[in-house]
């Protein structure tokens, strides 16, 4: 049997369509050829992952034993012919309800100015919902902008695009990506959101979810209690209270992350929101492409940061972030193989700029960040920068998620450079401290990256901000 025939037979097998002599031929091939069995295992893994992914939400809500027992009892009852009677009674009840009530749409939505969406429904023709309405099976994609969701159950949500969601049931929403805030009244307790990484069940609360492709999904609780369960690895369940935020690591263990209330909208904007921060992103297959861009004259140069959570393996160190030196390739300098800072998810570096010549703090005009490595996505970058005005509290200035190198060849390497600026010329004014927090990048071990240089440009604030 040649490779093409084998592949065809295996796909037919897992579709339950292989029979007759073709089945016998495949069976013989699998008995005789270890390579055929390896191909079989590959198909098995694909089939299993596809099935588990799509039906996972039911399987992850591990079947309570009482339900299994009831199912068995029901099966016995069915065998006795009683189920038919039960079905008739149930059918009559449903028909009575249909006849006496015009159902309210399960979910309606409104859009903010400038929002672009597309909608599709599982029901076709006359059965398809009309207008800004979602029924179970409907899928809403937000290309850009913000949408307000109003469930008939009383659940309300504000979701920022780009986003993609499918209503599975009145109380179950599948969110493939998007940043969403929900408010769930007590009568709708049990409302569940299923994302690629987690299953979240609300216990009467207000919470936010960030779900982005290639990043680990985060849940932020602002009020009440939610139950979260990781869909991967250990599939650990945890109850989160107000003021807590978590993401599930690749092994399924919950990890803390700062609560980011300002990341979520709880009202629909009344005008188009244009981002003030302008982010310029560049990438290259040459890992030393931006080696000459590291600055030794920016505001951070020479400052010693307060750091937490960095990987110090291979002599990597966060002090190399602001030394004005890009650094050489891996193992090119004896005794210092990793010439850069090696992040972990949640690693922080906090720089105290001081209050400046006029004690008004500093104006930050731009921020430049360079990451690179010899392969496997470590040249991507994902981070958040927060600024603290003189005498004030930290606020998030911007979040960077830039990961163009996930498909790079293993031995190719690559670099990314991100520059933040503001249309007004000043990103932030009157600042005394700046804090950077590394986030998750795709395709690398531990979702980490190698940060070569971090430059903050600006000067002392001259007038009261």
């Amino acid at each position, binding site marked *: 049997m040649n490779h093409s025939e084998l*592949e065809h037979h295996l*796909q037919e*097998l*897992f579709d*339950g*369509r*292989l*029979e*007759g002599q073709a*089945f016998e031929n495949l*069976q013989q091939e*699998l*008995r005789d050829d270890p390579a055929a069995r390896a191909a*079989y*295992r*590959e*198909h*098995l*893994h*694909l*089939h*299993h*992952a*596809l*099935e*588990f*992914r*799509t*039906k996972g939400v039911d*399987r*992850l809500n*591990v079947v309570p*034993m009482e339900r*299994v027992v009831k*199912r*068995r009892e029901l099966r016995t009852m069915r065998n006795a012919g009683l189920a038919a009677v039960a079905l008739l009674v149930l059918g009559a009840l449903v028909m009575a309800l249909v006849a006496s009530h015009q159902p309210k749409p399960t979910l309606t939505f409104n859009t903010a100015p400038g929002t672009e969406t597309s909608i599709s429904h599982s029901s*076709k023709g006359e059965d398809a919902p009309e207008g800004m309405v979602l029924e179970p099976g409907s899928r809403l994609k937000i290309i850009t902008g913000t949408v307000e969701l109003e469930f008939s159950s009383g659940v309300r949500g504000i979701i920022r695009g780009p986003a993609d969601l499918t209503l599975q049931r009145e109380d179950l929403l599948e969110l493939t990506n998007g940043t969403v805030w929900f408010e769930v009244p007590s009568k709708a307790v049990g409302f569940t959101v299923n994302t*690629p990484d987690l299953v979240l069940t609300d216990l009467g609360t207000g919470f936010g979810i960030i779900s982005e*492709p290639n990043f680990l999904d985060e849940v932020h609780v602002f009020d009440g209690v939610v139950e979260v369960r990781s*869909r*991967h*690895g*250990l*599939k650990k369940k945890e109850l989160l209270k107000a003021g807590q935020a978590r993401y599930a690591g*690749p092994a*399924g263990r919950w990890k803390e992350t700062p609560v980011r209330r300002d990341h979520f909208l709880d009202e629909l904007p009344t005008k188009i929101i244009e981002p003030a921060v302008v982010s310029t992103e560049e990438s290259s297959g040459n890992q030393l492409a931006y080696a000459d861009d590291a600055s030794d004259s920016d505001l951070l140069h020479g400052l010693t940061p307060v750091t937490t959570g960095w990987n110090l393996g291979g002599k990597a160190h966060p002090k190399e972030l602001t030394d004005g030196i890009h650094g050489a390739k*891996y193992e090119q300098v004896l005794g210092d193989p*990793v010439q850069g800072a090696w992040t972990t998810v949640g690693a922080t570096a906090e720089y105290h700029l001081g209050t400046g010549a006029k004690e008004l703090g500093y104006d930050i005009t731009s921020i430049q960040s360079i990451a690179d*490595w*010899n*392969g*496997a*996505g470590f040249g991507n970058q994902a981070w958040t920068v927060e600024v603290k005005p003189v005498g004030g509290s930290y606020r998030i200035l911007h979040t960077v998620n830039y990961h163009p190198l*996930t498909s790079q060849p*293993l031995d190719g390497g690559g670099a990314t450079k991100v520059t933040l600026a503001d249309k007004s010329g000043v990103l932030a004014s009157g600042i005394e401290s700046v804090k950077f927090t590394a986030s998750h990048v795709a*395709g*690398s*071990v531990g979702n*980490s990256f*190698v940060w070569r240089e971090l430059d903050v440009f600006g000067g002392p604030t001259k007038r009261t901000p």
Partner: protein
Amino acid sequence: MELDATQQAEFVSQIANHQAALHAYIISLMPGMDGVDDVLQETNLVLWEKRRTFEPGSNFRAWACAIARFRVMGHRRKLGRLGFQMFDDDLAEQLAAECEAEPEELTDRIRALEHCLGRLPEKERALIDFRYFSDSQLEEYAAQCGRPVNSLRVSLFRIRTALKKCITGELTLYRNRP
């Protein structure tokens, strides 16, 4: 002796944590056959009934797979009596044993799968979603989208081949360390 409340909760948690592995193991013993979900449920029930016999600290996965194996063999015998064609017991056992011996990479596989699905054109993604999410027949989808069912089967073959290749590439990336 009955487990106390904490032990019961831990046991349920163990069952929950091994659903994916059990599902994969059951499919490996009965590829393309109906009833995988039923066998998994039956296995869960038997695991619960036998909870007092499990020794804490021993290999739960191996114990659960052994129980699942008996359930699958019972199911296979039933289908065999109904005339279904299936691999002989020796080959089924060999395939399942080889699958069980492989490292568990489901977390990475599902992550890689999501990534690869994200690269598919919308029409191809819709076809995969229909095939694995809907309980309806492919013929119904063919009628909906106005394509011959054989053409959809060819598309599915091509998409799955591409997904398999893409996942293999992603897993290689995940294994690479700086």
